[in-house]
């Protein structure tokens, strides 16, 4: 590593980054609808993602109703069940979590946290949202086309995904793939913005090592997503050609329901390689922003700098790089060459080390802190519990031979819900409770927040922790009904019923959250500019909510890292990033 010496610059280097042009809206339409302001785009992304996420939530209720009380609800048949799981998974992973973390949090926080006026390519940024919205509309349209949405599972494995034994073969799968292609195009537009903004538009003094970990997490995740999504793009295009034009990229010679189809020679494994080359980084695309957000929440609400900041940054980078060489751990029992197992098990378990370091540093940040048990902090604590739980069960599934009995069982379902469902959602909620005051100028109601938190956290844990044990027992995933199976005791059905009840309760608790968001918008307590006493730049804006161009006349200058909490000798227990050191203050420089 080149050691560039630390240079103290006494004066303040001049003005702003020259080549960022700020677009000035002229009408209501360009201000709030076709807006090029990253803050508005962020809100648009978030609302769209949460709206489609509500659909996925309802689908999960339907699935749980079927699993908990099989045969009771005549309106759910096996093919609908498959459609529910497919759409639920696809929406949650891609259209909710990816869009919300990168399009929502990314758009809002990156420019504010690095001290920029906006994203560097505002027009492209706006297009990104509209293409995303189109992707969501195409996706939602599959519910209304003949045959309904595809029921191929979110992994869309061919040949099954495009054959008639799977629901949604006519329209569902075609629109699904089209929607994914649109999503990727839209995301790429946004992603370019997030990356280039972090690279180019940081304000004076904002070196990489002064960035809040949220920016590090979102930045690294975006880089990964930009490079990983093309794999899904290629796979989707090829599958679409197989489905529509009869090519045989993935389709082998096969006999369907006694009929010889005209396909031949293709490789279903090829699809899996492409899919998981995207799919595994995707896990970290969702996890890294959550890591970043949690680091900041813990630090702010424990009034203590994040422990081991450098290690945290290195770990993010290491995880980002490593996650491109672990994809085939999703394919241990796919029939690929068994010797790959040795390699991928090793890389997969190695990635556990930087991940573990992050967990240690979070809990060590709590040590000797001044822990305010605010709602964001509670969510951060819940994130740690669920993430540690899900991460550790990942060590089962990543260890190739242990995966053999557990793959494709409910153990897998429990694992990935814990680690990339519940844990990131905890980060999302924590983030929303934390930054809502900045976005709206008002606090979310704390009592409602605490109620929402406890029901969501304990309820979700009660769903997914016991689920692992159904998997150990051998219950396969994607079964709409276990049916009469000798090795499954009657008590397993009771457990399923219990989990379903918990799922319904958790689901309804989300209505409290939605109510709180709307109610607080009008009736919430006035927040002021910096209600949590945080150091990072987004809390230092001249106006709250931040106005057009974020910073008023002059861009902020950064004098310190983002974690100066409880610094010995300082009067307050936090020092904002743009507060000049005592020496400069004497010269008459003010934040």
């Amino acid at each position, binding site marked *: 590593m080149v050691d560039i010496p630390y240079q103290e610059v006494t004066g303040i280097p001049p003005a702003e980054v020259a080549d960022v042009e700020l677009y000035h809206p002229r009408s209501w339409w360009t201000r709030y609808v076709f807006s090029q302001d990253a803050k508005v785009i962020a809100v648009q992304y978030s609302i769209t993602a949460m709206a489609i996420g509500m659909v996925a939530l309802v689908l999960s209720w339907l699935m749980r109703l079927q699993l908990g009380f099989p045969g009771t609800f005549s309106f759910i048949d096996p093919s609908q069940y498959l459609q529910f799981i497919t759409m639920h998974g696809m929406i949650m992973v891609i259209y909710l979590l990816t869009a919300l973390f990168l399009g929502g949090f990314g758009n809002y926080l990156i420019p504010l946290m690095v001290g920029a006026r906006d994203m560097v390519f505002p027009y492209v940024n706006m297009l990104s949202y509209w293409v995303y919205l189109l992707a969501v509309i195409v996706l939602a349209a599959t519910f209304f086309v003949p045959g309904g949405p595809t029921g191929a599972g979110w992994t869309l494995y061919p040949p099954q995904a495009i054959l008639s034994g799977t629901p949604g073969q006519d329209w569902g799968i075609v629109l699904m793939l089209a929607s994914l292609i649109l999503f990727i195009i839209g995301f790429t537009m946004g992603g370019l913005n997030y990356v280039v903004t972090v690279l180019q538009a940081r304000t004076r003094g904002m070196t990489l090592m002064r960035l809040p970990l949220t920016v590090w997490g979102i930045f690294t995740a975006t880089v990964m997503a930009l490079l990983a999504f093309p794999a899904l793009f290629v796979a989707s295009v090829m599958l679409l050609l197989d489905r529509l034009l009869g090519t045989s990229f993935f389709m082998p010679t096969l006999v369907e*329901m006694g009929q010889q189809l005209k396909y031949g020679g293709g490789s279903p494994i090829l699809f899996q390689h492409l899919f998981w080359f995207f799919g595994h980084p995707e896990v970290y695309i969702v996890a890294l922003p959550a890591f970043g957000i949690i680091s900041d929440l813990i630090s702010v609400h424990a009034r203590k700098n994040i422990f081991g900041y450098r290690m945290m940054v290195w770990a993010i980078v290491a995880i980002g790089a490593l996650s491109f060489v672990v994809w085939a751990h999703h394919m241990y029992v796919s029939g690929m060459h068994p010797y790959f197992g040795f390699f991928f098990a090793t890389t997969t378990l190695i990635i556990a080390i930087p991940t573990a370091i992050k967990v240690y540093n979070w809990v060590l940040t709590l040590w000797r802190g001044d822990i305010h048990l605010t709602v964001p902090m509670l969510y951060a604590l819940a994130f740690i519990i669920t993430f540690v739980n899900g991460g550790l069960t990942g060590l089962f599934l990543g260890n190739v031979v242990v995966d053999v009995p557990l793959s494709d069982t409910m153990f897998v379902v429990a694992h990935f819900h814990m680690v990339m469902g519940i844990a990131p959602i905890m980060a999302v909620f924590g983030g929303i409770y934390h930054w809502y005051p900045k976005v709206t100028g008002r606090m979310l109601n704390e009592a409602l927040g605490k109620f929402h938190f406890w029901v969501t956290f304990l309820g979700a*844990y009660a769903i997914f922790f016991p689920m692992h044990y159904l998997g150990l027992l051998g219950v396969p995933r994607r079964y709409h009904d276990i049916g009469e199976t000798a090795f499954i005791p009657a008590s397993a059905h009771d457990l399923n019923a219990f989990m379903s009840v918990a799922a319904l309760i958790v689901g309804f608790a989300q209505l409290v959250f939605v109510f709180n968001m709307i109610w607080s918008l009008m009736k919430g307590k006035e927040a002021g500019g910096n209600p949590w006493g945080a150091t990072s730049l987004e809390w230092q804006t001249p106006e709250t909510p931040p106005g057009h161009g974020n910073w008023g006349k002059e861009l902020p200058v950064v004098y310190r890292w983002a974690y100066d909490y409880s610094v010995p000798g300082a009067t307050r227990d936090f020092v904002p990033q743009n507060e000049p050191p005592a020496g400069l203050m004497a010269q008459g420089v003010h934040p």
Partner: protein
Amino acid sequence: MAVAIILLLVAVASVLFHIYSPWWWTPIASNWRYIDDTINITFWITGAVFFAVIAFMAYCVFRFHHKEGRRAAYNPENKKLEWWLSIGTGIGVAAMLAPGLIVWHQFVTVPADATEVEVMGQQWQWSYRLPGKDGRLGTSDARHVSSENPMGLNLDDPYGKDDVVIQDDLHLPVGKPVKVLLRSIDVLHDFYVPEFRAKMDMIPGAVTYFWFTPTRTGTFEVLCAELCGVAHAQMRSKVIVQEEREYHAWLEKQRTFAELSEQRGVAKAAYKADSE
């Protein structure tokens, strides 16, 4: 205070649930006890880490939650502590990975004396085939599938003639290693018997495999573990593991491919004669 207790309770309840859970893996019926052992090792290590992290967190919340006048310590990093934690994690990971890789090596090394059994999946049923007297399975291809030849055997392959085509459940002799050859003629399936622990996807256009030795007699349910369409959950069959003698008695009664095609030919001719 309450928060700390609840956090601790979550950890304690998880451990208690694990200990008292009536839902645990099925009694093993194959030689893959090592897989269970590796899972157990993993449970011990990960369980300890889980409990330690959550308990530590709960303690921090209990001990350091905000009180009037408290100020957090200032502690940017502690290289030594971080290195020790990393090394400790590395050791823990190695302790799980090493046995895992050793057992995987056994898993992918098929013993020379394993007898071959073919399992074929299609939407939504299982078919089985055993090599005949010549000890070799004939080749097959989805292209050859027809109502007379549902498994798609290659008619020109002499090895295929004496293959035993099983029209019911699969029987296996106890104590003999078996190499299960897996194929499919339509979509992905996965031959899954929980008691055997081993499983593998079946891919149309390719033959995959795994091996195991049945270690106890009994009837075991076969499920499909790879989503294969609407009736995925109904794709069932049975494997019956028997003593050598009973197994042979059963095998005697099975028919070869040649016999079956002949029979089908006769039946077809009779049908034709009838309809004319």
